């Protein structure tokens, strides 16, 4: 008997950093799932990974990076470096989506993406998220978690390299009403 438990909902009580960390953890699990499966299961795991990566990165670009840019030390430089990494990762992901998951080329490209995403996530955790947590009061960080979730709900579910800014992400698709909802959520989250 093995008992290791899942905690799908626990982040609902956490702040935006908890939510981001949980999603990083989930992304790592999905990479392992894609690598450890074949056939239909592999395709499904990859689709889930594509979906989560896309909405996660978009929501970071809309909510997290703008907040970090103005509130942490050397925010501009830190965020600029993260955006460049996100751009590269999106290009890798877009290329990967054109390949058949059963091919060796897919596995090789997946590995490049995996390492790029792991390194990017670790840099965010070390150089951005922890500073963000120190720079904002806990209530605001909890509100930002709500804004992040709202942004993910309307974010594009496929990668779009080249739109690493909040405005461009929002121009990409969602109807105006939804855009406004996210803007409201962001404004509420950042209010004192």
């Amino acid at each position: 008997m093995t008992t290791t438990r899942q905690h799908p909902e626990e982040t609902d009580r956490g702040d935006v950093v908890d939510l981001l960390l949980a999603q990083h953890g989930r992304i790592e699990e999905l990479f392992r799932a894609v690598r450890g499966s074949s056939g239909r299961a592999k395709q499904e795991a990859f689709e889930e990974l594509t979906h989560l990566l896309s909405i996660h990165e978009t929501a970071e670009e809309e909510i997290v990076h703008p907040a970090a840019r103005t509130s942490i030390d050397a925010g501009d430089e830190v965020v600029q470096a993260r955006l460049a990494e996100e751009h590269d990762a999106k290009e890798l992901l877009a290329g990967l989506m054109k390949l058949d998951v059963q091919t060796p080329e897919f596995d090789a490209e997946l590995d490049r993406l995996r390492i790029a995403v792991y390194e990017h996530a670790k840099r965010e955790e070390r150089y951005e998220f922890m500073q963000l947590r120190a720079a904002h009061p806990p209530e605001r960080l909890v509100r930002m978690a709500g804004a992040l979730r709202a942004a993910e709900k309307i974010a594009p579910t496929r990668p779009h390299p080249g739109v690493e800014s909040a405005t461009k992400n929002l121009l990409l698709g969602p109807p105006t009403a939804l855009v406004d909802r996210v803007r409201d959520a962001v404004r509420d989250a950042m209010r004192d």
Partner: protein
Amino acid sequence: MTFDPLTTQGIPLERQLRNWRELDVTPLDPDDTDPYTRCRVIVMNGIEVEAIMFSHHLARTCPDPEVKRQLAYTRYLEAQQQRVVNWLLPPIASTLETTIAYEQVAVDLTAWVARMEPDPYLKQAYEFGVLEDFDHLYRYANLFEMVERRKAEKVVDQLTEVMPGRPTKMHHRHPYDNVRDPYDRTTVDPLSKMHALTVMSAEQQTMNFYMNVGPQYMEPIARQLYQEIGLIEEEHVTHYESLVDPGETWWERLVNHEYNEVYLYHSFMTQESDPRVRAIWELHLNMELAQLHQAVELFRRHDGREPEEILPRELPVPVTFEPNKEYLRHLLATQIDLTTLGAGYVREAHERFEKMQEALHGGEQPPSEEVIDLHRERFGDEYRIETEGPHPVERLRETAEARR
């Protein structure tokens, strides 16, 4: 065919120096690495750190400038070995992930040593200690999920169970009670000397690691837990180092150190699944042989003795990383309530223990308890990996409602 470290030629010392390109090793990929490969890396790092620090201490008491120069040279080589070994650790792993791997080492290495140890008093020392590292693994695993939102299973796989051992708060003994009796160097099985040196070095590195990385955390519970467990590692180093006969000469101890490095690199080379890492173990084994021969020469010259008087007749059974689940469950069921009194073990909480506990806890919950309470509060349960059924000690089973 027996491999005799005393007669097998290694790489001559003057050819052991490595350049930057050779030192710049590609780190492990955590998704592709056997957890026990990472364990072997952590052990050999601890062994090399001890080799370096031992040589520094020896040099500080050594009046002969020529010998000092020889020691400095070989120590530099050992320092390069340490850099190569420890730089195998993945940069994309967090400190806490590495911490969990350190505790997996402490559990499965100490359990192996306990199982193989021929001397009953020494065996008891390892059996006593392993139940504490086992509990540390459980506390850190709960911290890991809380502050990094990841599961310890991704580090330890299902090779090592994660559940309560002897509760960490009970590890805080009066320092007097951490001093054990030493083995007798003239009668002890040489394997026992290797065991003591190995476990002492691993625990010492764990202590160094926790006392240095702990303050880097921002979360108060993480800072506090590293401080608490870091202090227990201080107790563990005291516990294990006191097993070593203080009557061993400096040169005798140098030979023991070098022989032990040969023994461990050889052990790990024979079982390593990662070919790239195996090549490093093999290279380092060949380097260690020449380092051992140099130590033997110094021992002959200064002590006028032969290495055969102090070393195993042949290389002992390789130290092996493998699951020890059944053995640990047996120890949990039979030894969880032990503490120490003087150099022995008792079941009752004696006066000196109680006084130490009172002075340290001051009627409050220590961080090791708080981390579990906080986890229960935030997640509704504890993080555990129980692959072999419910906890062998009934009172340490998680309640049904906590398990949801």
